[in-house]
């Protein structure tokens, strides 16, 4: 029936309609605060980061060694079996070059988010982090960073670590 309709419902507003007060708006700001428990698995993982170690969990049934760690194997749906210290090196599984912040504002010097496959884990398994020392412009970064590139964690100085994912500053290229 859409082809019979001349005009569909809806009144589009312009930003100026709001700025100039042509339509009424009511504003509200959320004030919400949360304290999240890191939980059993991530608690241990973050304690490990504070010591400069990356800890993974291994499942004896499927054999997978995974990060971020969890106390259960979601594949086998059973408790997994042990902590395994893996390396602080890995390979770039994929990356991007971000000029946008969380609020959609723009930055001149981009960040380089990447999925890092961690050495010692099951192939293809890793976590998201940032790449560093790979240039400050899109051209430099694209010339430098390749999928499959070997990288190494740069740790925050031990005294500054808080037991958080940011205890690793970023990953930088290394000789593979």
């Amino acid at each position, binding site marked *: *029936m859409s082809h019979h309709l001349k005009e*569909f419902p809806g009144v589009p507003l312009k930003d100026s309609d709001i700025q100039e007060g042509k339509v009424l708006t009511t504003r509200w700001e959320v004030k919400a605060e949360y304290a999240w428990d890191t939980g059993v698995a991530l608690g241990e993982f973050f304690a490990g980061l504070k010591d400069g170690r990356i800890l993974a969990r291994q499942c004896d049934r499927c054999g997978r060694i*995974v990060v971020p760690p969890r106390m259960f194997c979601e594949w086998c749906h059973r408790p997994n079996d042990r902590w395994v210290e893996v390396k602080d090196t890995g390979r770039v599984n994929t990356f991007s070059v971000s000029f946008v912040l969380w609020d959609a504002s723009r930055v001149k010097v981009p960040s380089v*988010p990447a999925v890092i496959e961690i050495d010692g884990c099951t192939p293809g398994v890793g976590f998201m982090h940032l790449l560093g020392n790979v240039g400050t412009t899109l051209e430099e970064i694209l010339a430098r960073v390749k999928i499959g590139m070997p990288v190494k964690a740069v740790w925050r100085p031990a005294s500054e670590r808080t037991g958080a994912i*940011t205890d690793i500053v970023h990953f930088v290229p290394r000789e593979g």
Partner: protein
Amino acid sequence: MGYKNRVAVLGAGLTKFMRRAQETGKELCFEAARMALDSAGLELKDMEAVVMSTAPDAFDGVHMKGEYLADGAGGFRRPYMRSYVGGGSGVFSVIHGWYHVASGHFDTCLVVAEEKMSPCMPHPQAAFNAIYDQFTERPLGVNLLWIFALEMNRYMQVHKIPLETISLVSVKNKKNGLDHPCAQAGIPGEYTVKDIMDSEVLVWPVHRLMVSPVTDAAAAVVLVSERVAKRMTDKPVWVEGVGWHLDSSYWTNRDLYYPKYVEYAARMAYRMAVITDPRKEIHLAEVYDPFAYKELHHMEGLLLADKGEAPRLLEKGVTQRDGDLPVCPSGGLMGVGNPIAAAGLMKVAEVFWQLRGEAGARQVSRPVKRGLAQAWGDLMQVGTVVVLGV
């Protein structure tokens, strides 16, 4: 299959797609629901149940949004249920409604999908941050574009797909959107590959003209049992297949180059629709395209192309409105707009109109008897598929 009723789509309704609508979400729901009922020739009193789909409450700043929207959607004094699987919600809403009727519990069900993203200031992007892991991801400063850029790059690298080819999706869908009466101002248009490639790099490889916009809108469809459909219309459009599938939230532990969960959702829908060769038996597809690359990525997951083959079908013109397999003849999210849940239901409405030959300037050239609508969402992990046929 063990279900009681065959289910038909009897009517569809849609509001304009707008960057900011004057109407509230409730008012948008009313407009879409009213239009769907009018087009079906039914009244709210005829609806035995109502199903609502709408994405994160954080956009509206209204918790229990399902209940807030219920009155506009007609969801009071009758069984009412909200379903939500992120971006997959709009297509999932039809699956949800299908269950209501197929189960034999109801003969009629009104399905409404709504999104009003504009209230969230300064930009709805901010509301998306709360979907990421609060321990391992949020402290890195993650935003929504990051993860799609990561997936897009992985897909491009594995199959060696040039950005120029992916830009062709934007060119096609933005052109198709010019014929959609609900398209959001400034979103459809005539663009060249160069225009797309020259647009601002947001999070490489994603450029501004490879992303769908923020949109306010609502959509609705009326689902009825075969018994009611036969009384009401000579042109029933049947829900022939439904499928959905969820993969792990540990998205950094799986290879993003291929959406396996979309394949499983599609296989489920094809099995139900007794489709053995989707490339021949699906005549048009409204594939989920919030980003340009997603249309290609999803065509492969839907088994409408081999892995890595979708870019070649696009280059050959197969997916144009006059091609053998028109994809996103509506203009899709890239050409019409992306009011999350309502965008998915818009795709189902488009397939409905195409199968009835009522898509006007958007009508595809080839004869169509069976079409597919698909959506995708959560943390790159859910696929929802509906196959409609006449």
